[in-house]
């Protein structure tokens, strides 16, 4: 390694236009979804339907961030699933604790 201790400059590759365009497109999608959430927050009646839409849109946004920005989609299948499977099991924690909270509500009020 010490023999190569020079200031060799790496070859700079040209900008990948298609890739950069895709990044900006993803950014636009994320911002549009956030704008839709805003619009719904002030136009729709508050309730379970609205909350379900919000959570659905959030998961879509999370998907775009993980797949496009963090490039999880491009990783090997084993790595992809070893990240995704534990996250899917979190859904159970969500359902279980919401049930728990609703039961405490019944007990208290």
């Amino acid at each position: 390694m010490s023999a190569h201790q020079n200031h060799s400059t790496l070859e700079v590759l040209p900008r990948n236009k298609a890739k950069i365009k895709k990044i900006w497109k993803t950014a636009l999608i994320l911002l549009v979804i956030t704008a839709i959430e805003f619009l719904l927050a002030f136009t729709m009646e508050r309730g379970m339907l609205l909350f379900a839409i919000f959570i659905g849109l959030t998961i879509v946004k999370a998907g775009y961030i993980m797949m496009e920005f963090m490039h999880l989609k491009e990783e090997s299948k084993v790595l992809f699933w070893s990240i995704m499977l534990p996250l899917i099991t979190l859904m159970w924690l969500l359902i279980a604790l919401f049930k728990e909270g609703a039961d405490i509500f019944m007990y208290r009020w």
Partner: protein
Amino acid sequence: MSSTAIEINSKRGIWDGGNEPLKASYGKLMMWFFLLSDIFTFAAFLITYGAIRVSYPGFEGHVADFASSNEYWPIPEMIFNAIPFVHGVHAPLVFVGLMTFILIMSSVFMVLAVEAGHRNDRADVTKWLLWTILGGVTFLGCQAWEWSHFIHGTDGGTLMTYVNTFGKTVSEMVYGANLHVNEYGPAPFAQLFFFITGFHGFHVTIGVVLLFLAFYQAAVGIYERRGHYEMVEKIGLYWHFVDLVWVFVFTFFYLV
């Protein structure tokens, strides 16, 4: 990456070593699994928020008639309605929307820095990292203002009956928020606000420090001598994660 090439015999068995089943470097793998554990922590926080929220009654009636009380959970858009420099203007969720925009843009700049790193383009890496840091610092500034406003409260305050720190039930005007009582709603509302946004802000702070490190090392050419910009990619993963968490905090805290 490595100067030594390992000759891989295609007949070699899977247990004979020299395999790379996940096809990712050690550092990147560790970052992914650290993030997975961090997702568990944040998920625990947010799901706790949800569980405590549904254990309280919601506000019955029109959103416009909302008045704070510790009898029911507050409507977030009626609480987070202030913006800096303009006092007393009802601007629901405008400021937090701006914060979301800033963090998403910062995430976009980060992915552009990672893309530049793949091309070994030092100038582009430093440029985009600087934009990313700017976004992160602006976000932190916004959050500091948000906290300050939340703690100090509104002009009017709320008349509340609650058990004070001496164990006595009192009825008095409450201004702002602390861990014991707050003018917006039940005590857990402010507690969860402090814990969740605080923990997220702490992550953003760490992210800014790491980004500055990456910016410095890229600018002085350490990565160029190293031969790759993988550190930018790893710190990028962390930064996107911070954005990812904010997307959930935004939904659970400010919308639902």
